């Protein structure tokens, strides 16, 4: 029965070609450093799932943001777990993405024909840091407020347009409810859209070009 269903699907959707290209592709003999890309992808998916669930209770307003997180942590069943995974997963994701970049750099894996994979990877690193920056404000506690005060003030040091850019980032002169809601919008809509689109390109390029082997000592 299962075989018949699979055959029916296969005849119409040809899924086995995708399966073979993605999971049955030839890879050189590599080491554990090569798992960091998959680890980053896994963490990105984990952040997306836990983030979606957090957004069901979180309220992005100065009056309610802090209280809604207290509610998630203390009253909602397993709220501490969902937020804990999101909190620690965020830190871990920055680390894995960064170490993944170091691996590619020191193995010279960014060279021809994989320059595009590297460039999209740079975008993914910056987007990951953008997630960290925007997500940091959302708990709306003293630490997140002042971290955002510092971070957005750094923007104002850009020559000539700095002050204007800071007002764009803050949504006005001060850190206000507008700052909170635009950070929330960027955190849950803009950045995920960019992240998963660029991950798609990144993965396509990895599958198309194959992964590089571990460079030998004499190379």
């Amino acid at each position, binding site marked *: 029965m299962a075989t018949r269903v699979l055959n029916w699907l296969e005849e119409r959707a040809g899924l086995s070609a995708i399966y073979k290209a993605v999971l049955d592709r030839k890879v050189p003999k590599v080491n554990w450093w090569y798992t960091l890309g998959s680890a980053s992808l896994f963490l990105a998916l984990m952040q997306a799932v836990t983030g979606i669930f957090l957004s069901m209770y979180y309220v992005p307003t100065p009056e309610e943001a802090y209280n809604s997180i207290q509610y998630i942590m203390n009253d909602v*069943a397993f709220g501490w777990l969902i937020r804990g995974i999101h909190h620690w997963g965020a830190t871990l994701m920055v680390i894995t993405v960064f170490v993944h970049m170091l691996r590619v750099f020191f193995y010279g894996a960014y060279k021809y024909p994989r320059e595009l994979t590297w460039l999209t990877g740079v975008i993914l690193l910056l987007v990951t840091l953008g997630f960290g920056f925007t997500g940091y404000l959302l708990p709306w506690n003293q630490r997140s407020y002042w971290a955002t005060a510092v971070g957005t003030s750094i923007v104002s040091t850009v020559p000539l347009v700095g002050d204007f850019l800071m007002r764009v980032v803050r949504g006005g002169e001060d850190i206000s409810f507008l700052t909170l809601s635009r950070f929330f919008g960027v955190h849950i809509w803009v950045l995920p859209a960019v992240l998963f689109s660029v991950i798609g390109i990144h993965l396509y390029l990895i599958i198309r070009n194959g992964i590089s082997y571990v460079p030998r000592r004499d190379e």
Partner: protein
Amino acid sequence: MSKKSDYMISRRQFVGGVIGVLGAVMTALVGIPVIGYLISPAARKRGGFQWTPLGPASALQPGVPTPFSFSQLREVGWKRTKINHTVYVVSDESQNSLVALSDVCTHLSCKVRWIADKGTFFCPCHSGVFDKDGNVVSGPPPRPLNRYEAKIENGQIMIWAEV
């Protein structure tokens, strides 16, 4: 090196099975807490009932539904929220019979209002019509308007309502 046929399952099947089992365990570890997380507010326990004062009996007009309001303090999430209700009280001249009607339509819970000209309650959502005692006159409502248990005590109208 042994031939492939010496083993009951191949290395590939074994690795596939292990990945499947680990995947199922991880999904359960995350999935079961998530179900609790999502249904959490629905599991909140409800408040008890008590006699709640509505207003002075002297405000009643015989034979005509008179609106009174009372409010509940509900715990919604991390806040105590005031929820306002309107109750229509109908009595006769002697105030012997006292009918306290909820203004929540029995069809799909919109609020009905008293149309004095026609002498009926009207629900604007799907044109449900009730008479002054809450019985269905026309439209989709399946049953009469809900009634509160009511009494007059020291000139005050009291209803038995959820806190």
